[in-house]
């Protein structure tokens, strides 16, 4: 598609409601659907809209597209259950843009709810069948989960570029400093680089504090046309650019282990649609399932050259008071990580751009970039948001 055609979509839709579920954390008294529903209700309230105003529901998890609308008593005319991993909700924002601009829907509800820690109301089995590509070509070798799989990319990045474990730890330490400013964050005790390096070894090169927390929770967004947004309760946050891409599913098929190709593709689209320059970005919300992931995102999205992500995050550059505010809610590393964290990167960006973040507010922030990983760096999705169209 011609990039000029994409640019015509800049600022045509806005996020008018953004919220988390009533609680986040370790919640054995909440099912996944309960948290979808709480977040949806809170986001609609934030927007000043009712359930009857919603004409499309975009959601995913372990359910069908019908389940969340049924639970909420909504009869949508458009459903989307795109499941590409944790960045799905960022991709749903691009899908909402297509729907709204095609006239298929006007008010789009995007929901997330996951009992990632307590595993309540999550349905059947957890893993991959033994007859799937992952079941045949990965599980027999003891990969056992995301930390082992993501670490394969970290090892090659260290080999190619000389990235160090200390640089990975810088991300964990800076993110924890943001979490200390967020009352909703799960982990708020200060940590040092030495603490990260001395924490329990999980899967070399990742220690425990290189890995995200595991929680229960939900989040939701209400999205509508820029025109309709003018009559909603709060200041609209405009979507200037979006992108999504997928380059593999199982990690062994990753084209280049030291370069996040899906993110490069996703970012190219978002920058082109938005016309925004890197120097215009006040805030980066980069999905941090593991410390290597924001480093790969910084490189893939062009904030630094390939291989320079490690030096980029050194000296606490992304911490409160640093030159590059990143993951100001405390990220997946310290605030919450239900399993599909992408929703929370969007909720935080909306709040920052509205100036609702209290102690952790990035002063004068007008433009943010949200970017997430899906699967094992398999997919990526990007959104550039702003207070102005």
């Amino acid at each position, binding site marked *: 598609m011609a990039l000029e055609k994409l640019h015509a979509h800049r600022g045509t839709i806005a996020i008018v409601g953004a919220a988390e579920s009533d609680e986040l954390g370790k919640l054995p008294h909440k099912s996944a659907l309960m948290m979808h529903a709480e977040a949806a209700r809170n986001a609609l309230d934030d927007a000043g809209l009712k359930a009857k105003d919603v004409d499309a529901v975009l959601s995913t998890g372990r359910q069908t597209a019908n389940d969340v609308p049924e639970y909420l008593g909504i009869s949508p005319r458009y459903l989307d259950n795109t499941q590409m991993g944790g960045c799905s909700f960022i991709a749903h924002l691009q899908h909402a843009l297509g729907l709204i601009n095609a006239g298929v829907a006007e008010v789009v509800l995007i929901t997330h709810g996951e009992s990632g820690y307590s595993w309540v109301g999550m349905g059947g089995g957890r893993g991959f069948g033994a007859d799937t590509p992952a079941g045949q070509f990965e599980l*027999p*070798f003891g990969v056992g989960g995301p930390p082992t799989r993501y670490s394969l990319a970290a090892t090659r990045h260290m080999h190619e570029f000389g990235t160090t474990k200390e640089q990975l730890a810088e991300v964990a330490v800076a993110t924890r400093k943001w979490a200390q400013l967020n009352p909703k964050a799960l982990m708020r005790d200060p940590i040092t680089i030495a603490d990260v390096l001395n924490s329990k070894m999980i899967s070399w090169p*990742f220690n425990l504090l290189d890995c995200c927390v595991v929680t229960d929770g939900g989040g939701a967004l209400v999205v509508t046309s820029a025109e309709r947004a003018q009559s909603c309760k709060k200041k609209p946050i405009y979507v200037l650019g979006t992108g999504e891409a997928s380059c593999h599913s199982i990690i062994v098929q990753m084209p280049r282990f030291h370069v996040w190709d899906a993110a490069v593709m996703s970012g190219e689209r978002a920058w082109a649609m938005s016309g925004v320059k890197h120097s215009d970005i006040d805030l980066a919300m980069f999905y941090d399932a593991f410390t290597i992931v924001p480093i790969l995102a910084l490189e893939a999205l062009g904030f630094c050259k390939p291989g320079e992500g490690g030096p980029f995050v050194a000296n606490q550059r992304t911490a409160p008071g640093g030159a590059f505010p990143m993951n100001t809610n405390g990220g997946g590393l310290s605030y919450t990580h239900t399993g599909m964290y992408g929703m929370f990167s969007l909720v935080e960006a909306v709040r920052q751009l509205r100036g609702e973040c209290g102690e952790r507010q990035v002063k004068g922030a007008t433009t943010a970039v949200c970017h997430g990983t899906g699967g094992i760096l398999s997919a990526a999705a990007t959104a550039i948001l702003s207070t102005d169209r």
Partner: protein
Amino acid sequence: MPDDRKTSDYKSPLPAPTPETKPFWDGLKQRQLRIQRCLDCKQAYFYPRNLCPHCLSKNVEWFTASGRGKLHTFTINHRPLKNPPLEPPFVVAIIELEEGPRLMSNLVGVDPDPAKVRCDMPVVIDFADVTPEITLPRFKPAA
């Protein structure tokens, strides 16, 4: 690292071959690493598919790879898995075969120590008969 598990006691996840992957798993039982290549675009590929992922041609064939390659990347897994294939910590490896394609495996015959395991080190296949039905492709440092 020695694998001291008896074949009959093997509890770790096993693959369930599908029609397009069965020749690969059958080959391993016969001490052959069979993969596929496209007769149109001439590229080898893995995992097994009924068409070429480079050009979608169905004009593909099986062949026996050399079993030699390089350790492209790895992790040393310390996680307490319920039924690990090897005693933790062990090396989960991405092997780049000399024919081009990559596959996941375990690196054995070397201490699971980041000072001793290196990206791009040469490796060679080491067949592991874990059950009467399944032989897994493991790799060890090349002599």
